[in-house]
């Protein structure tokens, strides 16, 4: 970039660029983003086939569901435990693109395909589950061997100090983001959320997904014991999916607040411009 080498104001230093994301990280990031979107939307289609969740080994219509999406002649609702929340227009009762009232749990704009097809939802879901599992495995191996884990994600002893974590929470609450050299590496909340997604949530999605397979149950019955039954695994699968959605929303807000162009560019080219220190700007 030519303008970076010939600054207009000589006293103001050129933005420092750091090579932040290596190629495997960038490829996995975008592949994973697309994969998770397809899995979420096809997963919501599968949920629509039986929009009720249970704990334990079994669970069907006559059994108590801790979460259920349903409809009355005029409304749609979600029931969580004994609490009923009206969700007309979004969940349980909504209007499709042709203007017709539908009573599937999740609306057509949120599912793959848009109109009810459990068969097609399963085809998409069970193919992209392979993409998720294979790409995550390769990414974790690369992180271990290539030093990404040790260099970028490893939480140092000092960072575990409650005071340090609390400071990071306060910085976030005040929208005060690191500048200069400090912005070159991940801060503690960032590290913990990336570790949580890569090493906890995504493996949990895969494990609970496999626990719902009757074939897998025969070859790996310990999965049933780990999650307390097939229907418990289905509930955990659903909850962990929304935890991933929550991560995505926070991730998106953070990218927007921290400078969307610089952030997205760094995940495409690898190069990240360190935000200049406040006193240098003055």
């Amino acid at each position, binding site marked *: 970039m030519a303008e970076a080498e010939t600054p207009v104001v000589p006293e103001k230093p050129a933005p420092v660029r750091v090579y932040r994301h290596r190629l495997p990280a960038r490829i996995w990031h975008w592949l994973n983003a697309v994969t998770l979107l397809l899995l979420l939307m096809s997963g919501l289609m*599968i*949920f629509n*086939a*039986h929009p*009720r969740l249970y704990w334990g*080994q*079994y*669970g*069907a*219509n*006559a*059994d108590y569901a801790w979460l259920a999406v349903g409809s009355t002649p*005029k*409304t749609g609702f979600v029931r969580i435990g004994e609490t009923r929340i*009206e969700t*007309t*227009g*979004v969940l349980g*009762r*909504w*209007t*499709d*693109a042709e*203007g017709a*009232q539908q009573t599937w749990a999740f*609306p*057509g*704009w949120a599912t*793959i*395909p*848009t*109109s009810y*097809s*459990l*068969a*097609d939802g*399963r*085809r*998409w879901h*069970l*193919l*992209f*589950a*392979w993409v998720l599992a294979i790409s995550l495995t390769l990414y974790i191996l690369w992180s271990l061997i290539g030093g990404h884990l040790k260099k970028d994600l490893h939480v140092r002893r000092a960072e575990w100090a409650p005071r340090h974590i609390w400071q990071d929470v306060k910085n976030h609450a005040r929208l005060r983001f690191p500048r200069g050299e400090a912005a070159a590496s991940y801060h503690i909340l960032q590290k913990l959320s990336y570790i949580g997604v890569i090493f906890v949530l995504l493996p949990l999605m895969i494990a609970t997904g496999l626990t*719902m*397979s*009757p*074939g*897998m*149950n*025969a*070859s790996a*019955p310990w999965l*049933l014991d780990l999650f307390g039954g*097939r*229907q418990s695994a*289905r509930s955990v699968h659903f909850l962990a999916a929304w935890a991933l959605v929550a991560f995505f929303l926070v991730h998106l807000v953070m990218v927007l607040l921290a400078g969307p162009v610089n952030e997205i560019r760094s995940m495409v080219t690898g190069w990240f411009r360190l935000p200049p220190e406040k006193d240098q700007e003055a």
Partner: protein
Amino acid sequence: MSDLILPRRELIARAGGLVAASGVLPLLAGCDAVNDAPAVRKILSMGEEMNRASQRALMDRDALAREFTRADLSPTFRSNGTRLPPGDAYATHAASGFADWSVKVSGLVARPLSLSMADIRAMPQRTQITRHDCVEGWSAIGQWTGPQLGRILAAAGVRDSARYIVFRCADRLGDALYYESCDMVDALHPQTIMAWALNDALLPIANGAPLRLRIERQLGYKHAKYVKAIEAVASLDRIGAGKGGYWEDRIDYEWYAGI
């Protein structure tokens, strides 16, 4: 003007429809076009083949589905699909307690059989408490009793050239009779039985009376109900639409339903 006095929730519902219709609609139509493209269908079906191949490769072919205890039984065992086969023939059978029901065993066998329910109940029996998993997502635990399919096939002298077992059913859905099929690994699996009892009682009509398949490592739609005939074949190509089952032919459910 009536719009003005619509209840709030209806307004919300309509607003949702408008949002969908304006910006998102072309995108969604695009998604569905992708979903329906033949090349995409071919790629999507790779997932089923990967699941079948990996489960067959990784799992012990005789690995048993978990068996539960009486304490684990579902209080109500849900039924699904056909709950009462239409037609006078079935009604007559039901009225007589299926005394004249017969199950034909044919195809690639040395000795074709015609088994009465009494013949089937006279064979050595297996009783198992297993979990039934519907493709829709629910599960129910029930106790099943019946002879192993492997014994029936041995009695008929199934030939080595048989690669699949086809189950033909008495229930008609729309324009066709229900049918299902499985490979020889699942057909000869120790827990694959032809069940005539559920929870110590004769199989209820809603659950497939008088005889249904239990194929415990696959999803519910594979468990053919109201079974009239068992046929050993070398290929599924010329049966139904060739995909190996009623729902497989109609709406593209996976033939291998181990996941």
